[in-house]
């Protein structure tokens, strides 16, 4: 490939750079694309046209007719089928020698081992929860010295961002969680008593009427549920002389959908795939580490580096090893923690994934956990991590106990 043949002026590894190896790496590297929606379609197309040959794609969604305007790998006949499966087949049929393995499931359904096979993961998701999950999963793997870079793209209307996360090395998704735009919500009193917008009527149906009438959770993929939500919202709107409640608006509000713009997806996907290309081929320096793009007020991009938060609950606190005697009870262990110079806690509270060990406050939890103080530490905790927090300190500590 011509592009890789010459060493670029900015190449960071000029001494070790080997064009032939780069070309080979491109076709041998197995990458995972998460999401086969607006961004995912673009990403799959770009990757396969840049020379990636081994791609997995995972998406739990099926194709809806409203996707067809921008998710260009899908046709009318595909409505109702798995996004991952249709996208994989389409791209394979258009590009030679590319193998795309589709996974029609949630990312959470796959075991940790599944993710270990990839050299890089490219994420084009619209869900904060799913991103947090994959981010935490990759940081966990980094703890086992398996570092899989995460290239994350996201769009919201005319805005978007791409970023490169080297789990446990630079700032992770959780480090910058406060950058996430919160879900649009309306004051509950407006919804309940003085609706003015069609959205208010839909939120009323969704948040007040649904739980009052139904005992099951609302499922946006169940047509009966959606129909009920639409009819209820419509009736509410009519009684307040509000117009504009439609079925698609209803779905948009209850699923919190922000209209997707095809060109934003294309720009962000291009940036993500460039980063994947540079990562695998070493041809040029990578994005370090965050690019925001804004296309709503003229056009603007800005690149900067996020700071890795030392108190990030996912990647921040490295595990601290505390040695303990086998015969210690919990109280003696807590005393040990208090006396460790580099911890400096005066009122620690401790818990594991499975139980509360000791809470110094509030009163009710202190009383409930006090009995553990006299129990043998080795009966309470095995090799699972112990979370230690202190009201005085902004950080939390992950501790692993090693018995002498």
């Amino acid at each position, binding site marked *: 490939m011509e592009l890789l043949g010459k060493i670029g002026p900015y190449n960071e590894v000029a001494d*070790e750079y080997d064009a032939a190896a780069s070309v080979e790496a491109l076709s041998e590297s197995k990458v995972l694309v998460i999401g086969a929606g607006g961004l995912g379609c673009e990403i799959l197309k770009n990757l396969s046209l840049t020379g990636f040959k081994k791609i997995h794609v995972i998406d739990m969604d099926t194709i809806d007719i409203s996707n067809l305007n921008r998710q260009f790998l899908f046709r009318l006949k595909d409505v109702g089928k798995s996004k991952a499966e249709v996208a994989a087949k389409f791209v394979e049929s258009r590009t030679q020698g590319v193998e795309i393995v589709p996974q029609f499931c949630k990312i959470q359904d796959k075991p940790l081992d599944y993710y270990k096979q990839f050299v890089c993961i490219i994420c084009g998701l619209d869900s904060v929860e799913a991103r*947090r999950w994959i981010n935490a999963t990759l940081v966990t793997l980094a703890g086992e010295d398996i*570092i899989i870079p995460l290239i994350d793209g996201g769009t919201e209307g005319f805005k978007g961002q791409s970023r490169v996360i080297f789990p446990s090395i630079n700032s992770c998704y959780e480090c910058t*969680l406060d950058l996430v735009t919160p879900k649009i919500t309306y004051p*509950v009193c407006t919804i*309940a008593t003085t609706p003015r917008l069609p959205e208010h009527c839909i939120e009323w149906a969704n948040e007040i009427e649904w739980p009052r009438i139904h005992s099951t959770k609302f499922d946006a993929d169940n047509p009966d549920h959606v129909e009920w939500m639409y009819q209820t919202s419509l009736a509410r709107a009519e009684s307040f002389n509000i117009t504009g409640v439609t079925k698609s608006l209803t779905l948009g509000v209850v699923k919190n959908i922000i209209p997707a713009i095809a060109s934003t997806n294309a720009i962000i996907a291009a940036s993500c795939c460039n980063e994947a290309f540079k990562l695998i081929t070493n041809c040029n320096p990578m994005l370090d580490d965050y690019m925001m793009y804004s296309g709503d007020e003229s056009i603007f991009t800005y690149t900067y580096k996020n700071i890795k938060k030392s108190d990030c609950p996912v990647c921040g606190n490295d595990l601290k090893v505390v040695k303990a005697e086998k015969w210690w009870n919990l109280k003696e262990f807590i005393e040990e923690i208090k006396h460790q110079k580099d911890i400096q806690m005066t009122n620690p509270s401790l818990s594991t994934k499975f139980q509360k060990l000791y809470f110094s406050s509030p009163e009710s939890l202190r009383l409930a956990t006090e009995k553990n103080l006299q129990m043998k530490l080795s009966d309470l905790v095995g090799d*699972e991590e112990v979370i230690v*927090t202190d*009201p005085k300190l902004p950080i939390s500590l992950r501790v692993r106990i090693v018995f002498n």
Partner: protein
Amino acid sequence: MLKLRQLQKQKQQEKQQETISSESKVQSSQIRLQKDITELDLPPSIKLQFPNEGDISNFIITIQPREGYYKNGKFRFSVGVTDNFPMEPPKIKCLQKIYHPNIDLEGNICLNILREDWSPVLNLNSVIIGLNFLLLEPNSNDPLNKQAANVLSKNKNLFASNVKSSMRGGYVDDEYYDHIM
């Protein structure tokens, strides 16, 4: 992947790290919740109960105002925190049927920091203090119980006596309210 190798080498030189199996890792929402709960700094009129052993994500708050319209009532609220905390605010409901302009008969509460003004930088303490404030200073601007709000804005004395009789368990405007004294 040379870049990654560089970074990895750097990191290893910095630190030899102990590892832990992912199955026993604590979720980040739980860590944050543990911090929030142990940092609570509440007046003695507010008590917390954890009915389920081992579960700190669901609990009950009891507020017994020492002043205001709702003086001496015992108000119980359920608090539920999801795995998406603190991105999502805690879910709080009033467990009794009470006469309050900003709380409806199903227990839904109109408090801005529980919804539209929630942000991850807020914590459980701010939410509970907000709840307490709502009992001390009910307001007629954000009505969830319209009748109560109307009375409050027009006739404060009538509102006070309505609150009193509702708290003893009784009817106000054809609606039965729970006994909460």
